[in-house]
């Protein structure tokens, strides 16, 4: 899933400066799971802003409305708030960057992000999420024992580990596992360590972020 976290309230306050009627929009997908922008967080955010504005005297008389959509990454759901979106002068999206853009494309009002979209990852333990996939567009996990060096190695090295691997940890910090140590250990356990002797050629980054938005087309389901 996409993992995001809320921007500091002080930053959100600045982004909404001068707004008289604000709609906070949550999303029931990934950001609900990682507890950054679901219905619960939308309500908490509304209360926090009301309190802040009441006590600081900023945005006097500002009104806050709330909605939480099934998804903010599909036009049909975005359409569901057409009426209320026409009544406000600002929308605060608590979705990932995708949702913010869908709202901004659809509604001619000031749309601002309430979250910082972090990465594609999953839960590590209760309250902790970690990055797992670099969204590079050309999966090589079959070569590396199911551990992604593109995003989990600090240098995205495809023929690792570099000389900074120490006691299973990355040179960058003690908390980060060396992805290549993990790959080496797993390939050893699987009896496939000889495969790591093959030189992995330079990656075709044109399949990754190459200067424009990528598209996936599935012809058989197009109307």
């Amino acid at each position, binding site marked *: 899933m996409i993992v995001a976290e809320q921007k500091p309230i002080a930053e959100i306050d600045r982004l909404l400066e001068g707004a008289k009627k604000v709609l906070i929009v949550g999303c029931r997908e990934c950001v609900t799971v990682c507890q950054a922008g679901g219905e619960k967080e939308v309500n908490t955010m509304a209360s926090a802003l009301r309190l802040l504005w009441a006590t600081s005297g900023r945005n006097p008389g500002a009104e806050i409305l709330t909605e939480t959509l099934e998804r903010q990454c599909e036009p049909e759901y975005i359409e569901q708030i057409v009426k209320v979106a026409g009544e406000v002068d600002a929308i605060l999206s608590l979705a990932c960057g995708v949702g913010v853009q869908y709202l901004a494309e659809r509604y001619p009002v000031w749309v601002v992000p309430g979250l910082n979209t972090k990465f594609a990852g999953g839960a590590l333990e209760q309250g902790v999420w970690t990055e797992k996939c670099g969204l590079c567009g050309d999966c090589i996990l079959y070569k590396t024992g199911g551990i992604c060096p593109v995003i989990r190695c600090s*240098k*995205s090295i495809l*023929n690792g*580990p570099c*000389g900074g*691997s*120490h006691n299973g940890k990355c*040179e960058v*910090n003690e908390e980060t596992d060396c992805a290549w140590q993990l790959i080496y250990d797993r390939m050893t356990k699987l009896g496939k360590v000889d495969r790591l002797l093959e030189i992995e050629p*330079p990656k075709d980054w044109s399949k990754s972020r190459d200067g424009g938005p990528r598209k996936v087309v599935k012809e058989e389901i197009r109307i």
Partner: protein
Amino acid sequence: MSPAAAAFKTDSKLERILSQGDFAVTAEIGPPKSASSKGVRSNAAMMKDVTDGQNLTDNQTAIVRLSSLAASVHVKEAGGEPIMQMVCRDRNRIAMQSDILGAYSLGIRNLVCLSGDHQSFGNQQTAKNVYDIDSIQLINMVRRMRDDHVLLSGEEIKVAPPKMYIGAAANPFADPFEFRVLRLEKKINAGADFIQTQCVFDLERFARFMELVVKRGLDKRVHILAGVTPAKSDKALRYMKTVPGMMVPDSLIERMAKAENKEEEGLNIAVETIKAMRQIPGVHGVHIMAIAWESAVPVIAERAGLLPRPAIREETAQAAPAEGKKTAD
């Protein structure tokens, strides 16, 4: 080109020295955090007769410094044999190939291919790292530019391919230990001609590493130059012990702590280390990294019995660059 000279891959002086079986000596020069060439040139002048090549680091520890390409040209003009370092952190394949062509056109004949220290260690911590290719892919790219006359994309280099003598790093002190020798082999398979290791303080572990290297026959396929760093104090040694990928035995730290003249002891340790390394099978030279203490290099070379440096012998001299040759092609 004579038949003897034709056997060489490049016209690097370092290649000649290693090929004729001499124990090679290289040393590191750190370019300044300024636009001044003075220090690089004076260090090159000081080192040119006591070493066979001088490494110019590429923004080491991710601190912005005068470029390794420009510093290599300064070394060349000061009469040295530049060994240009190139890291994968800051440039994509377009910029790297461009700099390799440029470096060769300016008379640089040795290139060490490295991953590079992560930007979080440096003075530009908010930088985006590149790592379009990694060090092993870089080695292979340089080899193919030289031997196959092609760019990474496969496009032919129709005239004047860059013929670099290719260096790489090996770290016997990083983990996983068992894979270090195999990764060295990958670098050799990719095209490395010589290896400069991480600085050696733990001779016992280094000897174990070299034993595995020799066992796999890798010393016959690549020239290994063992890294040596003189320390000025026990504090410096203690710091180095904390650096990931470095090992410093406590006995060495204690010895240094007890020493009255610590700099002198640091030199003694470096000299003893070099003498011990010469006894280890498969070691073809040393690489002295006297970080911010370049003046130690001639002293160490002298005391370790590495002087005078050997001349390029007749049979290996054929394709060597002429004395005082202009750097530009």
